[in-house]
């Protein structure tokens, strides 16, 4: 046999192997099992220990809080608590807990369990406080004491009235974990989670999948799917390819440029505006932007329509002010966004004597909620150049960027990109617009905006127990802030997801949480 014959046989054998191999590849995803393409591996499944929306998407199906958001809204509804009473001064909340609820490990859900959850997070002497860190514990920093009054009654004593409390209880940081499971698992609890939700944890195959099954003894209406599998697929293009190939039934955070591939038969694109604001922090303490007119000029100079339509391909809407419209009850809909008006911008710059000013602009390469920050940054740079502002961009990786921006822009930059996703209209302005939230006081007001009127409105809104009253105060705040322009208000993101047509009853929630209990998979 010659060498050539020998190689030909090898080639034929290899060809045959290739032809046989694909037999298993085209298997369809099984009935009743929903496979979700996620953007990353979760960090932990301990709700008190995580901050990423990616992790929240799994958590809200395993756990429940005392309250929850009404489907399709950001309004608070009963969850594990059937009802509650608030003392007149707004510092005492008494919850009546739902009866007959058990955690997936059989531990009863009761007032002691609630107390355990809050003490673990807030009390440094608690024996299981070391199962943290608890980065969002400040959501509940006003809680002074949690008391189990009886089996089904729990009372919170707050240090001061704090209106966002009920809404924070519905946020993942407030979800209830099984005390017995924390005691058994210690720091590893986040890898073997136990809650009371419609799905129970089955397994976490490292870097491959998190599998959750329908919890048959669930107290409420049972889940529509037998199981959900969350698959981390970090590369967005690979995620899109996997969706087209049928390896997953649903994917979230579809890149804007890929959306058109899913228009047509076989797929459904779902969109939902959420409480997200993408803005520029403007340095109001020093440099040209210390002048309100220059800050307003920046707002007029930026073509926000072009950014949301061309750069973001319609996956966002133009923002009018610091509060996103998703907070419908607190949103001031009489505000309209700064128009795109380069002439007006030029006139304002001339009035302020800031023509041709040079600005340093911090741009990040990526980061949670930042959409397409480099492309958006360069579009903004071009718009500002058109009105005669000389903007030089400095780009940083997300962690480095936060390390530069959060301690304040003073002495470093005039503008910086930023985006926030929050659960209550209080959170963002309270943490990022008050005088007492300047970075040296531990807040996120990196641009040093200060207006005593805004400070007073925000303090009053946070302590007001009546929601209509709060709404009125937030609406006033938005008007003042829009006029003062401490930020350039750019966009509110519309989150998106794609499902194949075997998935039914799926909607996205304005809370950005992925509630899957009603979803049916054929």
């Amino acid at each position, binding site marked *: *046999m*010659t*060498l050539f014959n*020998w*190689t030909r046989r090898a080639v034929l054998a290899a060809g045959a192997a*290739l032809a046989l*191999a*694909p037999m*298993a*590849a*085209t*298997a369809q*995803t*099984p009935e009743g*099992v929903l*496979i979700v393409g996620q953007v*990353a*591996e979760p*960090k*932990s499944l301990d709700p008190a*220990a995580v*901050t990423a929306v990616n992790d929240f998407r799994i958590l809200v199906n395993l756990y429940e809080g005392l309250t929850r958001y009404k489907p399709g809204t950001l309004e608070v509804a009963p969850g594990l608590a059937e009802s509650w009473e608030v003392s007149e001064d707004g510092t005492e909340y008494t919850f009546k807990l739902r009866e007959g609820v058990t955690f997936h490990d059989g531990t009863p859900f009761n007032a002691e369990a609630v107390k355990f959850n809050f003490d673990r997070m807030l009390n440094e002497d608690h024996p299981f406080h070391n199962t943290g*860190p608890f*980065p*969002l514990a*400040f959501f509940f920093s006003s809680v002074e004491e949690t008391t189990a009054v009886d089996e089904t009654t729990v009372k919170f004593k707050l240090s001061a009235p704090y209106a966002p409390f009920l809404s924070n209880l519905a946020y993942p940081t407030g979800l209830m974990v099984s005390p017995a499971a924390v005691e058994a698992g210690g*720091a*590893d609890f986040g*890898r073997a989670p136990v809650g009371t939700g419609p799905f129970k944890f089955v397994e976490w195959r*490292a*870097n*491959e*999948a998190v599998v959750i099954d329908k919890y048959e003894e669930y107290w409420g209406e049972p889940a529509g799917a037998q199981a959900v*599998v969350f*698959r*981390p*697929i*970090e590369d967005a*293009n*690979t995620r899109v*390819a*996997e969706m*087209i*190939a049928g*390896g997953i039934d649903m994917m979230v955070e579809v890149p804007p440029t890929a959306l058109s591939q899913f228009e047509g038969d076989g797929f459904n694109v779902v969109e939902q505006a959420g409480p997200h604001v993408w803005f520029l922090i403007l340095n109001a303490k020093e440099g040209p932007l210390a002048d309100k007119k220059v800050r307003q000029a920046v707002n007029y100079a930026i073509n926000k329509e072009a950014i949301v339509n061309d750069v973001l391909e319609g996956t966002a809407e133009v923002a009018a002010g610091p509060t996103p419209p998703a907070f419908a009850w607190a949103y001031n809909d009489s505000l309209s966004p700064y128009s795109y008006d380069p002439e007006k911008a030029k006139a304002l710059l001339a009035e302020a004597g800031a023509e041709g000013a040079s600005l340093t602009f911090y741009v990040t390469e990526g980061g*949670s*909620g930042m959409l397409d920050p480099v492309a958006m940054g360069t579009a903004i740079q071009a718009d500002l150049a058109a009105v005669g502002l000389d903007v030089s961009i400095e780009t*940083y*990786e*997300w*962690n*480095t960027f*936060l*390390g530069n921006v*959060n*301690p304040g822009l003073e002495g470093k930059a005039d503008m910086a990109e930023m*985006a926030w996703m929050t659960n209550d209209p209080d959170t963002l302005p309270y943490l990022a617009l008050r005088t007492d939230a300047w970075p040296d006081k*531990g*807040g*996120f007001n990196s641009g040093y905006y200060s207006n005593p009127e805004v400070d007073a409105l925000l303090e009053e809104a946070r302590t007001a127990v009546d929601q209509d009253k709060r709404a009125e105060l937030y609406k006033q705040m938005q008007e003042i802030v829009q006029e003062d322009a401490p930020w350039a208000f750019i966009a509110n993101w519309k989150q998106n997801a794609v499902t194949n047509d075997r998935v039914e009853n799926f909607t996205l929630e304005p809370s950005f949480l992925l509630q899957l209990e009603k979803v049916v998979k054929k």
Partner: protein
Amino acid sequence: MGSYILKRLVAAIPVLIGVSVLVFFIMAMIPGDPALAILGAYATPENVAKINADLGLDKPLVQRYFIWLGNMLTGDFGRSYSQNKPVIDEVMGRFGNTLILAGVAFVLCSVLGILAGVVSAARQYGLADKLITFTVLIGISIPSFFLGMILIIIFALKLRMFPVSGMYLIYGGGGPVDLMNHLILPASALAVVATGVIARLSRSAMLEVLRQDYIRTARAKGVGERSVIMGHALKAAMVSIIPVLGIQAGFVVSGAVYIEMVFDWPGIGQMLVNAISQRDVLLVQGGVVVVAACYVLFNIVVDVAQALLDPRIKS
């Protein structure tokens, strides 16, 4: 041979210490803070300081290095905060997956590369030689991640022959057949460049040997052509091919970083990329040390294999 291997192993120790020093201090120099990665946009300087203290990152750098090194010698690589589990578990699990991918790619590129080189040399200037040389040139010029995307489009999306990504069918999957199915595209993409390099070098190594007097003698004595090429020439040429294989093994492992991202293969490359962006210092350090140790081991194996084939090398 035993003392030669021992000598090579001892020489590897300073290399590994050097690697540990480098990776430790480079990670310390990279801007960005692990606490920021944990806290995200909600990072206040106060909380950052608290978390850094919890993680022991507030201690002097040199002290931290020796603590880390000391712990590592007892097998404790620390705990990854981004994965919330021991670094060594995460690294070994991931590394095993990379070895499956890189191992298959390595076998592919070695077998195909040597085979192509031998055929090319045996048919010098013939049609087969020209075809192989041309194909090899294309193979070497295509970046593996780009080839990966092309393979996904053709074989996964258009022809539906293979899955797009992952390592197993997620539900009800598993088993060697399923694994092979998921392996074929990424391993092929990973093997292409190395196959080209090995083919080129095998061809020239073979040509050199085929010109030697003892080959002419063998042919004159009537030894069959196949036996001349596979028996005499290839064995002699292997002495020069093996070091190339060793180097390519290294390239295949490092090339896996891109391929793992494209095919969502849960290996160490994908882990390192994420760990770096998360500033998960301990995970990066542990991962790099394990990969470096593996490289060193590869090199020792190559040296030993060479010494076995050609006893002159040992001395």
